[in-house]
């Protein structure tokens, strides 16, 4: 655990220096490795700790391990900002924030004990709180990166509002390392809610939609929803009085050990997720209809007020088409046992299958990739075959 010094308000003259956990590798050394790869046009495979190695397409390349570049650089609770090197374990950051009554608003999954900040940002996966407080990208304030030429570049900053130049830091979020090696990230943090309560209601998909549509137009502090086998879980977070009154209004049973439940959901440790086939994620407008039984197994999990659905498809191509027709997209998310996706692109059998981009978007995305990584050496092919 890192030793932390939190400066008082009187120490205004100095930048608050935090944990000086010395990284085992310097930014310059990593940049040098990237520069060599650039000169030799030799692809790199960027690795934090490998907790989300399943996410994205399988690629080969010389491994560039960045987990040694770790340590929290700056944290002052009253600024609502934390800056850390990307090799810092996510857990260390979350513990430090919790000690000061704060948290990461996007409730990121770890998927393993040693998940790093860098992997969290590069994958851009958000947890149950996402529709109500924001996604990973909504909290990214600044990023120091190495581009594909080995140059160390800094974008954004440590302030809430910053419109100087293009928003490159948010662009890095979810780019799976294909646009830059992430070195340091500044994140906005938020106060931990004073109180939480989860209620369970015997609702089906349609009843959920009706309820959430009505509640969504009222100032009710919902912070997560989950629907599975006709049981709807609704979590409320905020000041105790507000939460209690909202929970009483909605009725239903109180969920005991709710914190454990939501944790298991975000970490995909509920039994539903542990099946020998490829789990798909469908991202949709919240009010999109139920996915037809022809396309997916009847049993599914719906989160985010309807906007995120976890399914086991019967026909992946048809599912992707249906998602697209309904204003969203579907991706093969995780394959626990190496089972092949019968109808998905066979080259992606051991990795994710992201929803295809329109030809115009793919062309533009390739040009953007080229502007950061002209020799195509940063995780080439991890996001899409050509990116």
């Amino acid at each position, binding site marked *: 655990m890192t030793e932390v010094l939190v*400066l008082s*308000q009187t120490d*205004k*003259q100095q930048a608050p220096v935090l944990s000086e956990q010395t990284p085992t590798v310097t930014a310059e050394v990593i940049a040098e490795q990237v520069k060599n790869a650039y000169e030799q046009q030799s692809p790199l495979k960027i690795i934090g700790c490998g907790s989300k190695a399943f996410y994205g397409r399988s690629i080969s390349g010389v491994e560039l391990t960045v987990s040694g570049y770790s340590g929290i650089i700056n944290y002052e*609770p*009253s*600024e609502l900002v934390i800056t850390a090197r990307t090799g810092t374990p996510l857990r260390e950051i979350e513990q430090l924030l919790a000690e000061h009554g*704060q948290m990461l608003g996007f409730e990121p999954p770890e998927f393993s004990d040693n998940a790093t900040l860098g992997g969290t940002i590069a994958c851009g996966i958000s947890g149950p709180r*996402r529709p109500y407080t924001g996604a990973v990208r*909504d909290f990214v304030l600044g990023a120091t990166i190495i*581009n594909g030429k080995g*140059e160390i*570049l*800094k*974008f954004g900053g440590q*302030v*809430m*509002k910053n*419109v*100087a*130049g*293009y*928003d*490159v830091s*948010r*662009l890095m979020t*979810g*780019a799976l390392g294909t646009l830059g090696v992430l070195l340091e990230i500044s994140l906005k943090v938020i*106060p*931990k809610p*004073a109180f939480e309560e989860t209620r369970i209601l015997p609702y089906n998909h349609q009843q959920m939609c009706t309820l959430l549509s009505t509640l*969504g*137009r*009222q*100032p009710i*502090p919902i912070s997560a929803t989950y629907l599975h086998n006709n049981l709807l879980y609704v979590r409320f977070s*905020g*000041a105790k*009085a*507000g939460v209690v*009154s*909202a929970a009483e209004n909605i009725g239903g049973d109180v969920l005991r050990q709710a914190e454990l439940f939501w944790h298991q959901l975000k970490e995909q440790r509920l039994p539903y997720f542990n099946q020998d086939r490829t789990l798909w994620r469908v*991202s*949709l407008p*919240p*009010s999109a209809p139920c996915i037809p039984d022809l396309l997916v197994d009847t049993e599914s999990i719906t989160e*985010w007020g309807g*906007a995120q659905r976890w399914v086991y498809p019967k026909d992946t191509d048809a599912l992707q088409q249906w998602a697209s027709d309904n*204003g*969203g997209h579907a991706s093969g998310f995780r394959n626990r046992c190496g089972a092949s996706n019968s109808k998905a692109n066979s080259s992606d059998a051991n990795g994710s299958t*992201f*929803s*295809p*981009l*329109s030809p115009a*978007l793919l062309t533009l*995305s390739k040009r953007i990739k080229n*502007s*950061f990584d002209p020799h195509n050496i940063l995780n080439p092919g991890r996001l899409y075959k050509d*990116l």
Partner: protein
Amino acid sequence: MNSNIAASIRTKRLASLIPMLSMLIPEDAILSEPEQLKAYECDAFTTMRQIPLLTVLPDTIEQVQHIMRCCHALDIPVVARGAGTGLTAGSMPVENGVLLGMSKFNKIHDINLHNRTAWIDPGVRNQAVSDAAAPYNLYFAPDPSSQLACSVGGNVAENAGGVHCLKYGLTVHNILELDVITIEGERITIGGQALDAAGYDLMAVMTGSEGLLGIIVGIRVKLLAKPASARVLLAAFATIEDAGNTIAEIIGAGIIPAGLEMIDQKGIQAIEALMHAGYPVDAAAVIICELDGSVEEVEDELTSVITILNRLNASDIQISTNEAESKRIWAARKAAFPALACLAPDNYVMDGTIPRRALAQVWTRINQLADEYQLLVVNVFHAGDGNMHPSILFDSSDEDQHKRANDLGTRILELCVHVGGTISGEHGIGLEKINEMCLQFTGAEISQFHALKNAFDDKSLLNPGKQIPTLARCTEFHAMHIHNGEMPFPHLERF
């Protein structure tokens, strides 16, 4: 440019462009008379002006595509303009370029109650979105001071903020999808109706790109439920330190106010003279704090904030008990700029953002600099998110004062960068702050910005010369920007 050369380019461009445009654009949507063009020569940063080659006012997406194809084929620059309320000359025309006015795109097409979104044209006024959503108890959160007049397309181009963005985010947090026309005239959808889209986060890149990457022709905005309760507090302080510490303590206590503003003594006096809102004119600073949410939540937080105010020696605490009182406190704050207009003919509003911990230090230093440059500076501050709006008051008819105001502006922005902040929190760069970009970014970073721009617009025809300076310009700026023979902050990286 030499005026003879400029005139000859103008003649040639008009001769080739007008017939091409006319194939799809009605005659009355192409403005070419000098008196018509005069209305488009500047945005709200009125000290920079340029007459465009033509102003084109399309009213369909196909027309926009056609204009882009014509300009791309003929290598003619295009500058998009919403309502023209920008503060940085971002939509000032470029010489011999087309000014693309988006004001006819002014429809709200659809409000989706289940998804809480609206699909709107880029020329729709910010306030009009919230007005249209109000019957459903919904609103659009970004609320820049110009919200009565500014367009949402402009909000996207500048990533506009406002007084409520600490809690509710900037424009980038409140939009889901953009319909964009590229410089080649191709139509692309960025983002989508879902909460995320496949591929790179191009919503992030487009938002705040100041018209340099594409033309926005449709926007899906998020709508939020209106809070059940909102209370506004005003409190006075004898020292800036107490006011600054109060802000840190409120946020440290786990409270995120909907709005948190701070005004210095000169600002208080100017506002009080105009508005008679009961602001305490002897105070060194006042803060305005708005708490919103459920009734229970607001009452809880109000109690905590009052405890903090009392502990930190606040006086003259006023608490609104109804909407009219809240409006009265805010109206005075929102009148800050008209109030300053009574003090001097011109007001150069800065937009630097700093980490809050540096507030007292920066505030003191700004006052020293104001004395040094013999100009009056009034500080109005979005204290919650660190966005400073020092206003430099001057008379632009006095050349020396005008120059001193510009130089002082640069020094203030340099100070913001020095303490770990940024030169612009919400107004954007445009042309107004283009030199100061060289203070914040290295040559390699600026080159990366250019490379990214090139991915969207390889002929550099979209709003050229704005937002991202050339490396040559930075070299020149650094050479000129030397005080008493010394570079300011010599440890900062230079070219």
